[in-house]
C-alpha cells in the first residue's frame, strides 16, 4: 500500500507541474519553421508542401524569449526560418544568430510595405523581411456601457469600474499611460515613467482581468465592456460580434512588427527562401492576413483581402503616425517592470 501510494504521489506531482515540450529532429528536404502557433492557415502550409515538395516541420514557441534561448542553445542551427517580434530580433542580430538575406533570391521583394521596413532592429533591411504588424487597440461593447471611448484616457473613466480587460504586456500598458501624458512609448526618462506609474495606479479599480491570450473571449462572453487587446484579438472579437466598436486611440498608436529571419546556421536556408517566396505571393499573403488578423505588410495583398476584413487588416492612412515600441535602457526597463508589479498589486 505504502509503495503504491508513493508511486501515486510522484505521478500526481508529475502531472501537476509538468507542462509539455517537444522538438523534432530535422532532415534534408524539410523546412524547419519556428514561430507562434496559429501564424499560418493550414491551406498555406499544405499548399507550400504540395507546390515545392518541401516538408514543413513546424515548431512553436509561446514567448520570444523561449525562441532566443533555443537559438542560443543551437547556436543558430536547427531552424530554417523564424518569425518573431521586432525587439527580440534586435538581440538575435546583435548576437550573430541570424544570416544576411540574399534578396535576389526573393522573387516578390518589392511587395513588402516599406512602412514596416528599415526599423530599429534592422535599419538596412539586411537580415529581415516583415511578416505582419500588430497594433494594440481598444475594442468595446456600446451595449454594455454608456461611456463613449475615443482614446486611452477613456479607460480611466469611473463608469468602467471593474469592466476593463488588458493585455499583460507592461511595455504596452505603461506605454499607453505615457501616451495619455503626451509622452513617448520609448521614453527613457525615469521621472516620466514614475509619473506614468502613479497614473496607472488609478486605472486599477477599472481592471477586471489582465491576460495575453484569447482575450477576445472576455468581451464576447460579457465579462467586460471594454478591452485593450492585440490587433488579432480585436479583429477576432469584431468578426464574432459586429456591434462591437474598434477604437484607434486619439493619443497615438504603438505598434510592433513581426519579421522573418534565417538563423545563422540554418540547415536548409533554400527552403526558407522558397517559403518566403510562397507566402509573399499576394494571393497567399492575403489568406495569411485574413487568418492571423494582423496588419498586412504586403502591398499586393491589400487589394485581395475580403471587403469585410479590409478595414482591420490594412493600416488606415492616418495611423502611420504611430510609434514602434523599442528596447529601452536597462534602468528604464527595470522601472517599467516595477511600475507594472505595483499596478498589479493595486488591482486586487
Amino acid at each position, binding site marked *: 500500500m505504502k509503495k503504491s501510494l508513493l508511486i501515486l504521489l510522484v505521478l500526481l506531482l508529475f502531472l501537476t507541474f509538468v*507542462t509539455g515540450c517537444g522538438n523534432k529532429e530535422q532532415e534534408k528536404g524539410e523546412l524547419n519553421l519556428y514561430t507562434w502557433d496559429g501564424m499560418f492557415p493550414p491551406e498555406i502550409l499544405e499548399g507550400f508542401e504540395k507546390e515545392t515538395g518541401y516538408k514543413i516541420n513546424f515548431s512553436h514557441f509561446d*514567448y520570444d524569449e523561449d525562441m532566443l534561448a533555443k537559438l542560443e542553445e543551437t547556436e543558430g542551427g536547427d531552424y530554417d526560418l523564424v518569425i518573431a517580434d521586432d525587439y527580440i530580433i534586435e*538581440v538575435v542580430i546583435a548576437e550573430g544568430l541570424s544570416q544576411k538575406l540574399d534578396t535576389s533570391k526573393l522573387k516578390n521583394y518589392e511587395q513588402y510595405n516599406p512602412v514596416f521596413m528599415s526599423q530599429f532592429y534592422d535599419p538596412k533591411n539586411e537580415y529581415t523581411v516583415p511578416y505582419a504588424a500588430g497594433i494594440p487597440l481598444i475594442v468595446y461593447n456600446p451595449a454594455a456601457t454608456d461611456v463613449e471611448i475615443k482614446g486611452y484616457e477613456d479607460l480611466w473613466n469611473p463608469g468602467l469600474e471593474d469592466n476593463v480587460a488588458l493585455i499583460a504586456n*507592461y511595455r504596452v500598458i505603461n506605454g499607453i499611460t505615457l501616451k495619455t501624458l503626451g509622452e513617448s512609448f520609448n521614453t527613457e526618462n525615469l521621472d516620466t515613467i514614475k509619473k506614468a506609474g502613479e497614473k496607472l495606479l488609478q486605472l486599477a479599480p477599472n481592471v477586471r*482581468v489582465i*491576460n495575453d491570450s484569447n482575450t477576445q473571449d472576455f468581451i464576447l462572453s460579457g465579462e467586460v465592456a471594454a478591452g485593450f487587446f492585440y490587433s488579432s484579438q480585436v479583429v477576432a472579437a469584431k468578426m464574432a460580434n459586429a456591434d462591437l466598436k474598434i477604437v484607434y486611440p486619439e493619443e497615438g498608436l504603438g505598434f510592433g512588427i513581426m519579421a522573418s529571419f534565417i538563423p545563422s546556421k540554418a540547415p536548409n536556408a533554400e527552403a526558407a527562401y522558397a517559403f518566403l517566396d510562397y507566402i509573399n505571393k499576394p494571393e497567399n499573403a492575403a489568406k495569411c492576413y485574413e487568418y492571423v488578423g494582423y496588419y498586412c505588410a504586403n502591398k499586393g495583398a491589400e487589394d485581395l483581402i475580403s471587403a469585410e476584413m479590409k478595414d482591420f487588416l490594412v493600416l488606415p492612412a492616418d495611423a502611420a503616425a504611430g510609434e514602434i515600441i523599442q528596447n529601452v535602457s536597462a534602468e528604464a526597463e527595470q522601472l517599467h517592470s516595477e511600475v507594472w*508589479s505595483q499596478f498589479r*498589486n493595486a488591482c*486586487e
Partner: protein
Amino acid sequence: MAKQSQGRKVKEAKGNRLLVLPIYIFTLLFVGLPFVYLFLLSFLKRAEVWGVDFTFTLENYKRIFSPMYLGNFADSLKLAFTSTICITLLGYPYGYIMARMNKQWKKRMLLLILIPFFTSAIIRLYGWIIVFRSNGVLDKILMGLGLTEKPLKLLYTYPAVVVGMIYALLPFMILAVYSSAEKLDYRLVEASRDLGASSWKAFWTVSFPLTLPGLLSGVVLTFVPSMGLFFIADLLGGNKIVLVGNVIQEQMTKGRNQPFAAALSVVLLILTWLILKLYRNIAGTSELEGIF
C-alpha cells in the same frame, strides 16, 4: 556458516551502495549543480538588452527587500495560509473517513480523487473558468433558482484563486492524512471509548494526535506548492493576484531579468527550507508522511 553469511551481507551492502550511485550522480548533476548556478546567478547583473552581465552585485537582494516585493511574499504567504486551512478542513475528514472504510470503498474513494488527475491541470482549471465566468454555469444555476438577479462576477477574484488552489492541492492532504490514519490502531480508540470517553474526546485525545504527522505532512505538501503555482493565480485571478511564482516567471520571461528571478527563487527556497525545519521541529521527524 555465520561468518560466511556475514561476509555476504557486507558484499551485498557494497553492491547496494554501487546501485544507488547513479541516483547520487543524478541528484548532483540535476539538483546540486543547477542550485549552485541559480545561487551564483542571483549575484549578477542583468545585461542591457539580453542575458547577464558578469559583475557581482547585491542589488537583486536589496530589491527583494523593497516594500513592493516583500508585499508579494506576504500575499503569497497569506494565500498559502488561506488555502492550507481550507484544504485541511476538507481533506482531513476525507482522508480519515476513507481510512475507516472497507477495502472496496477505500478503492472507490481513492479513485474519485485520482481520476481528475488523468487530465492536464490547465484543462481542469479551464473547467473552473466555465463554472465561474459571468453568465457561466454557476451564474445560470443561481439566476435560474432566482437567488441572484445579475451575474456575480466571481471569476478573477481572490476566492476564485483559493478555490483553484484547494482543487489542485487537496489530494496531497487527503493522501497524507489517509496514510497516517490507515496505520492508526483503532483498538486504542475502542479502549478509550470503553473507559468512558465520549466519541469527541476519544477523537481529540487518541485519533487526532496519532494522525497528526499525516496532517502536518499534508500541510507542508499543500503550503509549499501554493506559494509557487503561478498559473492558478494567472488563470483564475486574471493576473491580478501576484504571487512570488508570478514575479519569478515574469522576470524570467518578459522582464528579461534572470539574476533577479534567481534571487527571488533563492529567497523562496530559503522560505521553503524554514517551513520544512519548522515541520521537523513540530513533528519530531524529517520524514514526510505519505511520501517517504
